[in-house]
């Protein structure tokens, strides 16, 4: 399902809520792509390869933007394409609808409710009220919560086409195609765990691809590996089940071989997401600094024209502010309150309290005195650019 990307380059753009921005080059393509590049160098194949690549990997005029919307402890992914918008889950509350509103999105061509848990479908009531949804896919499994019933009521009250998709179903919007990998068909008669029949989709846009497993767990991942093997290979993996240890199994991660991974979890959530085991397994394929989470980075947006990707962190429509305000907005590590400190990457409530207790700090490097902050996280903090300079 995936073609190698001949000229992929990745960039990261970190944008604070006050509009501070920096662009940092990420690592080059994976070994698979390096190998493909070597093939291109063979003189006999060079001309043919160029022609094939020109036909196979068109650069889109408008990039695809994949928004991993920060909805707290839940999941919501918007694929914003030039010829269609696809929304995969919406979190539990009104955050997704508010985000769509801010982004100026008025129509959703395809909405997918991966399964019936509240943290994935609860926000649909607000979404249906605020935008026009043309088509919705749901697996058909029954659930007993009012949250679920209100979701179904919202679909009934809408004009959206309803479909219970199965493996191989596909929707295309220009260059963007959405393919269902799981389940095999409607789960209307299934009464087991709601995660078992979670809809898993893969999106392709030129040579860019993203795997969205929802809350699929290891059993489903195993069946996907058995069925698709290396065809699962994708540019981006959204880590299943909010980065839970129940998902992102080793064989699955190996088959997907992502270059970037993203999980969606609320800061300091009660489930402990993301779990260290899952992060460790994904780290076997992806450099740890290329694993992004909405708990740490807020909304994560990945843009791709089909040949390269940009990653934009902590972004949101209309969040830019005048530069003067940005300058005033830096966080003084020696005086800021614990709540303000949690705006710093890798700083949750517990570490914020540690920082308060360990003051004063003589330099930003001095933050390594805080348990859990090593050189790598210190570098992330520097790159985020939120801290005020420390005068000695």
């Amino acid at each position, binding site marked *: 399902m995936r073609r190698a990307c001949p000229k992929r380059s990745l960039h990261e753009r970190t944008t604070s809520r006050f509009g501070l921005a920096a662009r940092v080059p990420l690592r080059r393509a994976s070994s698979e792509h390096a190998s493909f590049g070597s093939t291109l160098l063979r003189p006999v194949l060079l001309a043919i390869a160029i022609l094939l690549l020109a036909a196979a990997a068109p650069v889109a005029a408008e990039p695809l933007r994949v928004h991993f919307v920060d909805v707290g402890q839940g999941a919501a992914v918007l694929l914003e394409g030039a010829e269609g918008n696809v929304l995969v889950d919406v979190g539990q509350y009104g955050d997704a609808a508010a985000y769509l509103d801010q982004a100026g999105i008025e129509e959703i061509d395809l909405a997918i409710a991966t399964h019936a*848990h*509240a943290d994935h479908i609860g926000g649909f009531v607000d979404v249906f009220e605020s935008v026009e949804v043309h088509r919705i896919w749901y697996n058909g499994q*029954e*659930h*007993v*919560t*009012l949250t679920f019933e209100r979701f*179904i009521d919202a679909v009934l009250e809408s004009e959206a086409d309803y479909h219970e998709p199965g493996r191989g179903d596909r929707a295309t919007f220009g260059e963007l195609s959405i393919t269902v990998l799981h389940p095999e068909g409607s789960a209307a008669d299934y009464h087991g765990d709601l995660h078992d029949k979670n809809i898993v989709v893969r999106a392709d846009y030129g040579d860019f691809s993203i795997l969205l497993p929802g809350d699929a767990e290891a059993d489903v991942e195993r069946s996907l590996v058995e069925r698709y093997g290396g065809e699962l290979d994708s540019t981006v993996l959204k880590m299943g089940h909010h980065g839970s240890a129940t998902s992102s199994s080793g064989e699955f991660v190996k088959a997907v071989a992502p270059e970037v991974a993203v999980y969606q979890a609320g800061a300091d959530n*009660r*489930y402990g997401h993301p779990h260290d085991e899952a992060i460790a397994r994904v780290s076997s394929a992806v450099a740890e600094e290329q694993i992004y989470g909405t708990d740490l980075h807020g909304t994560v947006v990945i843009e791709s024209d089909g040949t390269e990707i940009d990653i934009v962190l902590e972004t949101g429509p209309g969040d830019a502010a005048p530069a003067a305000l940005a300058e005033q907005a830096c966080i003084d590590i020696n005086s800021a309150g614990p709540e303000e400190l949690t705006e710093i990457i890798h700083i949750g409530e517990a570490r914020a309290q540690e920082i308060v207790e360990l003051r004063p700090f003589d330099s930003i490097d001095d933050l390594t005195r805080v348990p859990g902050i090593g050189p790598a996280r210190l570098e992330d903090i520097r790159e985020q650019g939120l801290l005020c300079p420390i005068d000695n």
Partner: protein
Amino acid sequence: MADDRESTHEPAAERFAVDSIEADVALVESESGRTFEIPAAWLPADAAEGRVVSLSVQRSGAESRLICTVDHQATEERRRRVRAKLDKLRSRRNR
């Protein structure tokens, strides 16, 4: 205040739908639609996601106990209601 009546059950005060159980955390939803994360150990052993549990107070002499049981009737009623709505959606799909 102590009550010296015989052991009695108060009418069920509240029902909660179990949305999910993960490890030791259960997400339950009240009849007003509010959700709460609670320790899964608070639920009866036969509770599972997709079931409705009822909370009732059992009084025995001076003591009161909070009883949590799976409400099979309420569970089935909810399922039936949702099934009808899903069937309506499916029929609309084919219109």
